[in-house]
């Protein structure tokens, strides 16, 4: 049984100089066989394990992770959470996740520092205005909060934005989702890991999958660096490496893996208390609780697994940031990094069965998977446990690339992909 985190446990542990905190999860050696194995110990994979154990009573399961948990894209994203997507299917999926975020810290007894500070999307030309207005209407029909703001209202909500009409891409308006915001990305992985571990899930780190063994059309198990693990159900949640794992099972996916970059500045006093995104100039910025500006750049257009991006992508983003926020012109950047994102042709994810029995994929989140972490885990757990998708992820199947029933969020969502 885990000790609960609370103000009292904090005080109690302060007396022993915080040296006797209970381990948040065990470090088990893999068993010979599990009822299900999740490949990938990022936020989505750990959430999947958590909901499999909690909602579907599947506790004889394991999460295998190549590195350390939360060390991949979970620790590399820009922590933005929103659900203002255009199409009904996406709105259902992302708002389901947002509703879970709203109660997550309490549910898993782990402070994920979810902060509903609002996400504002800027319009810079007439077409942006039309698109953003259309999207706010679509959002509201789906029960998602969204308002359209004039230039003056944008300035009032975030005073440091340059709203001069004389800049290259003047701010002509914007949208605001007040329920949107940010969360602490590491805490999400750690919280789900602790919760899953408490229910008996084995979290096995430093365990790379080398092969997926099939017996005809069924999954038999996985070959790993810690030996063979027998299982009838394998859920792959490997982000940028999904195609590599699909290849092990003899499948091909409609994915391309590309580097996506982000950077943070030196920490400064609070200056921006919301998240501002700009689709047209591709720049988004928020401020972390430590005071760093968190800046998201774009993807490179070539396939790469190198976790490095091109300098000109960062340069373009910073040009846009400086034009929108001249106040940041003296800021120095502390760190820059890349993560490998798996992008679908329609820029929507895949949470789906495959034509191999017992093999499931949760991938294709591209540039925006973090926001969906709880919802993705919940729906993927449902899909694995019941061998059937939940109605909220039914549209996000692999078959849509054959039927043509795509969920085309390319450019239609709030940010360019």
């Amino acid at each position, binding site marked *: 049984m885990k000790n609960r985190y609370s103000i009292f446990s904090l005080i109690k542990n302060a007396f022993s100089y915080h040296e006797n905190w209970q381990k948040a999860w065990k470090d088990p050696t893999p068993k010979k066989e599990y009822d299900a194995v999740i490949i990938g110990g990022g936020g989505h994979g750990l959430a999947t394990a958590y909901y499999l154990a909690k909602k579907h009573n599947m506790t004889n399961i394991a999460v295998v992770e190549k590195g350390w948990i939360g060390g991949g894209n979970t620790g590399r994203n820009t922590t933005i959470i929103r659900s203002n997507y255009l199409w009904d299917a996406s709105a259902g999926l992302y708002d389901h996740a947002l509703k879970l975020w709203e109660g997550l810290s309490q549910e898993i007894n782990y402070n994920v520092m979810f902060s509903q500070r609002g996400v504002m999307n800027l319009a810079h030309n007439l077409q942006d205005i039309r698109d953003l207005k259309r999207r706010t209407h679509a959002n509201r029909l789906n029960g998602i909060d969204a308002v359209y703001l004039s230039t003056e209202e944008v300035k009032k909500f975030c005073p440091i934005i340059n709203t001069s009409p004389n800049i290259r891409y003047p701010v002509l308006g914007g949208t605001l989702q007040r329920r949107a915001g940010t969360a602490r990305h590491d805490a999400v992985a750690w919280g789900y890991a602790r919760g899953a571990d408490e229910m008996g899930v084995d979290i096995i780190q430093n365990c790379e999958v080398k092969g997926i063994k099939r017996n005809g059309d069924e999954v038999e198990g996985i070959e790993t660096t810690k030996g063979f693990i027998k299982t009838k159900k394998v859920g792959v949640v490997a982000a940028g*490496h999904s*195609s*590599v794992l699909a*290849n092990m099972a003899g499948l*091909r*996916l*409609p*994915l*391309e*893996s590309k580097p996506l970059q982000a950077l943070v500045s030196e920490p400064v006093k609070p200056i921006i208390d919301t998240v501002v995104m700009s689709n047209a100039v591709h720049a988004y910025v928020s401020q972390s609780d430590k005071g760093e500006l968190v800046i998201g750049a774009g993807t*490179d*257009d*070539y*396939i*790469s*697994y*190198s976790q*490095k*991006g*091109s*300098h*000109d992508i960062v340069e373009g983003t910073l040009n846009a940031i400086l034009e929108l926020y001249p106040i940041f012109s003296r800021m120095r950047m502390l760190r820059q990094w890349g993560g490998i994102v*798996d992008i679908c*042709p329609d820029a929507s994810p895949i949470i789906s069965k495959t034509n191999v029995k017992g093999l499931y994929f949760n991938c294709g989140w591209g540039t925006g998977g973090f926001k969906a972490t709880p919802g993705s885990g919940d729906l993927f757990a449902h899909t694995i446990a019941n061998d059937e998708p939940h109605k909220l992820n039914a549209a996000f199947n692999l078959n849509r*690339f*054959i*039927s*043509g029933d795509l969920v085309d969020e390319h450019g239609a969502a709030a940010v360019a992909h």
Partner: protein
Amino acid sequence: MFLITCPFCGEREQSEFKAGGEAHIERPKQPTELSDDEWAEYLFMRKNIKGVQFERWNHAHGCRKWFNMIRDTSNDTIKAVYKMGEKPPVK
């Protein structure tokens, strides 16, 4: 970020080029005969290899010509560059 030797212009920065994805995907000879599965395979399914991959590139801010490249996607090193229609120099 890396340098690419365009077969027509010589060595240039990668930012002058546009990546065109996987190379040697042949357009179906009889499109009218294709099933939905075969269309999906042609249009959407990709190898997306971690390692040595054959791909197309376009010198968008240069001669604007297309060419092929063999590149290791795990570390972005280029193995070979060859013109459209030519046989790949290495397997």
